[in-house]
């Protein structure tokens, strides 16, 4: 049964491509956006930033792209499909351990303990690039058991008890809930990750896309991002 209002105001669908690590937060934000815009349905697609970028370049019908790093966003800009991306959030690394931190880790240097099973992100992905930057800055050489392709894979190893510690973003620690304990560390400030967002040129709903970008940059969304462990744009 179709509500009477639907006839007057046909449903419009806004398609948002967002980095996988934004999953939980953007799902909540999309609901808020839908509430503020009757007749709009936000369809979310989450994947690694680079996968989404290549789909956009190959013609995916996306309206908005929110990436987990600036380089990937630049590839979409270079393809002429977006201009003026805006950074809407940033993120710093934290150490994730089993609940209660049984290994008693308190600093970045502790991660170099050879008896510790450590997993990190590979340098090719944003969290791994940050890890590598901190290693260089501090001179601490980590010996990880695995360099994972994504934050999810790092968290998977920690929550299953396979690894004693992992390096992920603060927002990831928060979204993992009770499954891990997060340990912030001072050196993380040296490698802040930035999240850009842009409305896409060839998207089917340009006006709505612009509205969504504006919404994400607005105070309500920023508050929710902060609650999810993200920091404001630097």
């Amino acid at each position, binding site marked *: 049964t179709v509500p009477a209002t639907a006839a007057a105001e046909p449903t419009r669908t806004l398609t948002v491509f967002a980095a996988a690590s934004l*999953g*939980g937060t953007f799902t909540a934000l999309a609901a808020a956006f839908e509430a503020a815009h009757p007749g709009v349905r936000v369809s979310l697609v989450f994947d690694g930033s680079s996968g989404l970028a290549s*789909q956009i370049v*190959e*013609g*995916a*019908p996306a309206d908005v792209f929110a990436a987990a790093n600036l380089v990937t966003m630049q590839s979409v800009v270079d393809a002429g499909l977006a201009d003026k991306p805006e950074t809407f959030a940033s993120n710093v690394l934290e150490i994730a351990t089993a609940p209660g931190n049984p290994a008693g880790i308190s600093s970045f240097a502790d991660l170099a303990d050879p008896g510790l099973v450590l997993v990190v992100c590979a340098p090719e992905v944003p969290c791994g690039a940050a890890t590598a930057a901190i290693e260089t800055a501090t001179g601490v050489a980590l010996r990880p058991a695995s360099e994972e392709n994504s934050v*999810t894979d790092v968290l*998977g190893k920690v929550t299953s008890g396979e690894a004693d510690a992992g390096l992920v973003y603060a927002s990831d620690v928060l979204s993992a809930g009770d499954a891990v304990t997060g340990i912030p560390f001072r050196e993380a400030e040296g490698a802040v990750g930035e999240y850009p967002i842009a409305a896409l040129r060839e998207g089917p709903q340009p006006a709505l896309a612009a509205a969504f970008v504006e919404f994400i940059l607005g105070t309500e969304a920023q508050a929710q991002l902060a609650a999810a462990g993200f920091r404001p744009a630097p």
Partner: protein
Amino acid sequence: MSRRDRAAGLPGWLYVPAVIGLLLVTIPLLALVLRADPARLWSLLTLPSSQDALWLSLRTAAASTVVCLVLGVPLGLVFARARFAGRNVLRALVLVPLVLPPVVGGIALLYTFGRRGLLGQALDVAGIHLPFTTIAVVMAQVFVSLPFVVLGIEGTARSAGERFEGIAATLGASPSRVLLRVTLPLIVPGLVSGAVMAFARSLGEFGATLAFAGSLQGVTRTLPLQIYLVRESDADAAVALALVLIVLAIAGVALAYRPAPPRRETP
């Protein structure tokens, strides 16, 4: 009848590797089941997103199984029967999707049917946009599943041999009739196992779908994509959803795949 079994005569030691193989597959499944929370399973199943994904998965996997049979059976038969130069290379090409990481397969499809793709540009002009549609899901599944059908059919057709086909031809049967009434019935075991493999592989397909079809609820987000998505935020929920897939697969395969009992001929 146990006496007959002893007459069938597999050596006893053969059961040692057989049971190890069985355990290697079944114990991890057991471990999954033990970790899953039945209460969550139910609440997950009642979510519209799960139901959309499940329904989409069943529809697309069924469609791609049909397409795989329609295209793969002829191709397997051609490889088995026709003699032509370059056959080994062509066969190797057909097997490539097996070896390709599925996401690369998806990229290849995007490079072919995407807006800037090899055929996509022409299709675009004709107003046909395949990527990010349900059809793209089926295409991705067919791409990764077709080799199983081709290989299975070729093998069965070879071992069935051509003797009966020759006799049928002398009785006046045209090639089409020989195919439909003799060849296909004789390779039914290969058809069934090919269909089962294609259906199972399609049901589990993830990487190529994500890359080529994207992940839109109700349109292209099949159950494996849903599992992947859920896993980002909640690994336990992902496992519970995967169990749905497993139960589905076991039920389907146990029902569909009942090979005929062996013919008992007097020697």
